[in-house]
């Protein structure tokens, strides 16, 4: 198990380098948008990764509400935090793509607004975890996560259901994509999934250690008055 982490780190490094080369050099240039379309290879896989992490957070939160499992609670915190990182990438790369293509940085259409709301929900979730001192914090956070997860399908299917400024789906829903572009997109998604796994693993170890330290500090403060007698 000790070897698995460096192996995953090395694999992630190799895959990310290869994916970067594929995205910037090997992928064909899109005819209408030109090179700026290559933002697609970071924007879309980051969004899919964030959705997946929020889905895992939802499953872990439901499991925690049913079983009160500390491991499920830790998984929920970890996936929410890493999910927010990937969602931030989506919200930053989106306007950088929109400005040269649409002529505006932002528009309040359903896809963009629901993505921003999704990010705000999980930031609120992390704030609750960070600053609440109540013993019920994990339960409240799990309940918030269950409701927050309802926004994920809204974000994902909004471009199918509503008329939006955001481009229509290129995979499924009648969309089409050049096979070479699809290949580069999937390689980048695989690379970002490996990066997400690596970050989640590191964050999970940190969370476990943090809880052990908190338990030790609580025990110490309980024993302190006894020792002073």
């Amino acid at each position, binding site marked *: 198990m000790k070897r698995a982490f460096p192996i995953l780190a090395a694999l992630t490094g190799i895959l990310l380098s290869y994916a970067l080369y594929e995205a910037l050099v090997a992928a064909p240039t899109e005819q209408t948008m030109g090179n700026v379309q290559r933002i697609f290879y*970071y924007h879309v896989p980051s969004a899919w990764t964030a959705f997946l992490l929020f889905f895992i957070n939802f499953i872990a939160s439901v499991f925690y509400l049913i079983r009160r499992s500390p491991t499920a609670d830790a998984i929920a915190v970890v996936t929410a935090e890493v999910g927010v990182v990937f969602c931030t990438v989506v919200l930053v790369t989106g306007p950088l793509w929109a400005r040269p293509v649409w002529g505006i940085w932002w528009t309040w259409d359903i896809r963009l607004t629901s993505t921003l709301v999704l990010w705000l929900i999980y930031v609120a979730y992390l704030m609750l975890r960070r600053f609440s001192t109540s013993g019920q914090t994990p339960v409240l956070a799990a309940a918030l996560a269950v409701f927050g997860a309802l926004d994920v399908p809204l974000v994902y299917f909004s471009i199918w259901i509503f008329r939006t400024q955001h481009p229509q789906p290129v995979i499924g829903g009648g969309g089409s994509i050049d096979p070479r572009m699809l290949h580069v997109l999937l390689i980048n998604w695989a690379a970002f999934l490996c990066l997400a796994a690596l970050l989640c693993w*590191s964050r999970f170890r940190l969370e476990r250690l943090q809880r052990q330290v908190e338990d030790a500090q609580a025990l110490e403060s309980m024993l302190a008055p006894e020792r002073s007698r």
Partner: protein
Amino acid sequence: MNFLYAAYTATWLIHITYAVTLVRRYQRLRKEIDELKDRQP
């Protein structure tokens, strides 16, 4: 091209910043563990 490089750079800055915060939190925790060990009778 500038927007493309800006998007890729921003992505990497976000991930690197997060990784750095993880390392710092881990170092702070290790310090707390050492302090706890020192206080052991």
